[in-house]
């Protein structure tokens, strides 16, 4: 089921540049891992799946209040390039 073209497509979605050799290697890795993971498919046929989901408590919410962040300069300093208080990247609009 896991084929090279699928792995290429996944790498494209994940913004990863992979060599042909790496595509082959990750195809084998994912095939082996997902083969093992098929043990959870057995559960799909068991009646336990019909159980209602466990109760989940909603996370506590606080007021959404805007506040200033004092570390802006330190944040920008971590970027490879910044200009006029913004992260600088290559031109994306012609």
């Amino acid at each position, binding site marked *: 089921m896991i084929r090279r073209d699928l792995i290429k497509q996944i790498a494209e979605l994940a913004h990863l540049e992979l060599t042909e050799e790496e595509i082959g290697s990750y195809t084998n890795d994912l095939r082996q*891992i997902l083969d093992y993971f098929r043990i959870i498919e057995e559960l799909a046929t068991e009646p336990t799946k019909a159980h209602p989901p*466990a109760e989940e408590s909603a996370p506590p919410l606080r007021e959404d209040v805007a506040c200033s962040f004092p570390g802006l300069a*330190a944040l920008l300093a*971590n970027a490879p390039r910044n200009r006029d208080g913004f*992260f600088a990247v290559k031109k994306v609009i012609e």
Partner: protein
Amino acid sequence: MRIPDTAVEIARRCREGSLCPLDVVEETFARIEAAEPSVEAFLHVDREGARRRAKALIHQGPRSGERGLLYGVPLAVKDNICVEGSPLSCGSRILEGYVAPYQATVIEKILNAGAIVVGKTNMDEFAMGSSTESSAYKNTLNPRGSDLSPGGSSGGSAAAVAAGAVPLALGSDTGGSIRQPAALCGVVGLKPTYGAVSRYGLVAFASSLDQIGPLAATVSDSALLFAVIAGPDQRDSTSRPDEGPDSEDLLAALEEGIEGLRIGVPAQYLSSGVQGEVVCCIEQGLRFLQSRGALLVEIDLPHTAHAIPAYYLIATSEASSNLARYDGVRYGPRADAADLRGAYRATRRRGFGREVIRRIMLGTFALSAGYADDYYLEALEVRDLVARDFAEAFEEVDLIAGATTPAARIGLGEKTGDPLSMYLCDALTTPASLAGLPALSVPCGPSENGSPVGLQIVGRAGDEVRVLQAARTVERTRASS
């Protein structure tokens, strides 16, 4: 200058004035220098910062309350937790040169309690691994054997404590990353209840599972650090509203014992896949608990074997989303390319190591159109079944105990070529992670081959106190046996 080995004792003596924080810092650096050549636990050691901090602490008055619970205690921090002004790499090239611009909540709390951060510890890249070998920078060695891995992903923190370089360290646990290295290095590691400790300032791997927790040489030190870092935080929306325990009450409660507690022993944690030498030590640990008045009850956690697929599908799905932010725009080195998209792809290709790429690929696949129903959503249902197993068991018992790891040791390089066998190292730690429960590993070995072995104790959500009480009972009984 000889300093005590435990954080409780260092803090007590520094508070009363019979020990000076600056002497503690100097002795700690001497210990780190002695241990590092054979352990390689640290990625960054901050000598000047720690000395400045110790001098500042000395000027704090001795009046009650001014000198905190961790006053003068040196502490190592896993390199995925923000310490303002210190480098943070997550063991990855993609964060090379990054300096944390703010303080994690746990760091604010330990500093308010008087602790001294001495350095950042090595880890598997982005906490993805069980041997610390996926770090882009170096391998950490297990102080119990130079050909052994310390486990992972908090291998640097566990090894630093096991080597006696520091009494306390912070780690993070997503599927066992505190408990497993604690077991393999012979120290105590606690993964608190999901939400008990703020994750603000922890670099996200899998947000529905990540938790920060203590690694320490003793149960009391683990309890002390847990009491300091626990509690609600408005900056973490998954933070539990209940206040953390009072430290003095908690330390006193540790000595109360476990008379009459019902402890469930799941067959799955002592059976297939668990090595014989591990089983022997775990059975001895269980006898320790029984000898102090606990009632052992056989229980069944039928979906234990399904936890690994569920965990790895959920964790990698969340990781594929969390790690999308590393594109060379805001942090780390940026690779050059003809256009922005090309720069993203080349930056990620160069910055991420093999295991991180493998997991991003797996997670992207599990979430992709046409496959999400069969993988990600199926895994969420299995997660629910695993949580139900625990919920049903906790109707009958107060705690659950079994092995932390299937094997007592991992040789260096033993599993790096076989990702699935590395994933299976987490077979017994991922279930409690999926259920969000507090779980701790306490030494109960050594095995017949001299390796440390960890007894895992799991409690109900929010019941760290009983987990720590049982661990203290094992520790005390083992010391006297």
